[in-house]
């Protein structure tokens, strides 16, 4: 993979667009997934992923070949997503105004599995959405890309100690959110059970 990737990069630098498209094809899922987890929305994730690749294409000549290509790519994608979130906050776009959420596609799945996965995905999205962008980013890089602290520092342009503390706080924050959600749903369940017969009687 790395060898092929190097060839694609060289060819793309020489002006071969086909090679760049092959490179983009190989990294479409990692980039799209990052955008999707960061932005929580399929349509915006598609747009952000495409923009990321266009940026990569126009800045390919600045790519330092001693670095891992995937780290460089993820770093461009991360910065782009953080920028988008910042703009979204500045423009005060509420989540309701964004296009509806589309679940990620997973083929060849049994209906029960699909329901469980959907619920899980929805929970993840809801929790990630409540984290501040920089916390969200370290969580995504840690759990979906399995990056080391050093690699995360490289991708985000910060230090290892900053990453560690951010990840620590992000995990705690998410744990709190999850606990709150559970408490709320535990309170909700008995109420639903009692309310139902009354509602049906009317």
């Amino acid at each position: 993979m790395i060898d092929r990737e190097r060839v694609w990069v060289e060819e793309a630098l020489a002006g071969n667009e086909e090679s760049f498209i092959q490179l983009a094809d190989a990294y479409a899922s990692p980039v799209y997934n990052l955008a999707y987890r960061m932005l929580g929305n399929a349509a915006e994730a598609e747009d952000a992923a495409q923009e990321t690749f266009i940026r990569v294409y126009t800045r390919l000549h600045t790519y330092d070949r001693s670095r891992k290509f995937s780290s460089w790519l993820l770093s461009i994608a991360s910065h782009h997503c953080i920028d988008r979130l910042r703009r979204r906050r500045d423009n005060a776009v509420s989540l309701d105004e964004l296009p509806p959420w589309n679940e990620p596609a997973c083929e060849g799945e049994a209906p029960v599995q699909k329901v469980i996965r959907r619920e899980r995905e929805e929970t993840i999205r809801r929790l990630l959405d409540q984290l501040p962008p920089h916390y969200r980013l370290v969580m995504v890089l840690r759990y979906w890309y399995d990056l080391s602290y050093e690699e995360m520092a490289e991708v985000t342009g910060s230090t290892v100690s900053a990453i560690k503390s951010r990840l620590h706080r992000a995990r705690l924050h998410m744990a709190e959110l999850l606990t709150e959600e559970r408490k709320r749903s535990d309170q909700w369940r008995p109420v639903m059970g009692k309310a139902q017969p009354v509602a049906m009687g009317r």
Partner: protein
Amino acid sequence: MKCEIVQEQMMDGVTGTLGARRMAESYAHLRQCTSCRERWEALQRVESLLGHAQLCAPAPGFSVRLQKRLAHRRSTRWSPLAIFFIAFSTLLVTGLVFLPSNGIFQWVWYQAQDPRSLAWLQDVLDQLVITGRVMTHLAGTVMFMLFRHGWWLPILGYGLLAGLIIAAWMGLYSLTKVRRAVMHRA
């Protein structure tokens, strides 16, 4: 063991990087401390929720859409240099048409007032020659920089050039004003 220490070690415990002895110590604490236990359980829930998270793929045809977008960008994208050249030429043409015409009208008017003031025409011609020389020199320098250092230096150069030309024309314009005042007094 103190709660802070246990909570500090929890992160390593959750990711399975805490040593067996420390893990045992932490567990001993968790058995008797409700708040730490709750936190530990919550962290484990996060771990199990995200631990199996899958990469999600874009809708099929991503690279085809990307190719289209790239082609579209290429056809519509104006290079900063092109934008600057257009802005600069507009500025230059406006300057060349507007300012001298103002001066020429005045000159014609002065001629009508006093036929001996031909020295004014000499000034205008001098200014034009100087401006032309400066322009040629700067354009040469700018083209040289363009080939060596990319697009931002030529822009800086042309910005300076535009400034200089405007300054030259403004100088010329104020000169006509002074002349007019002098003529009026005379």
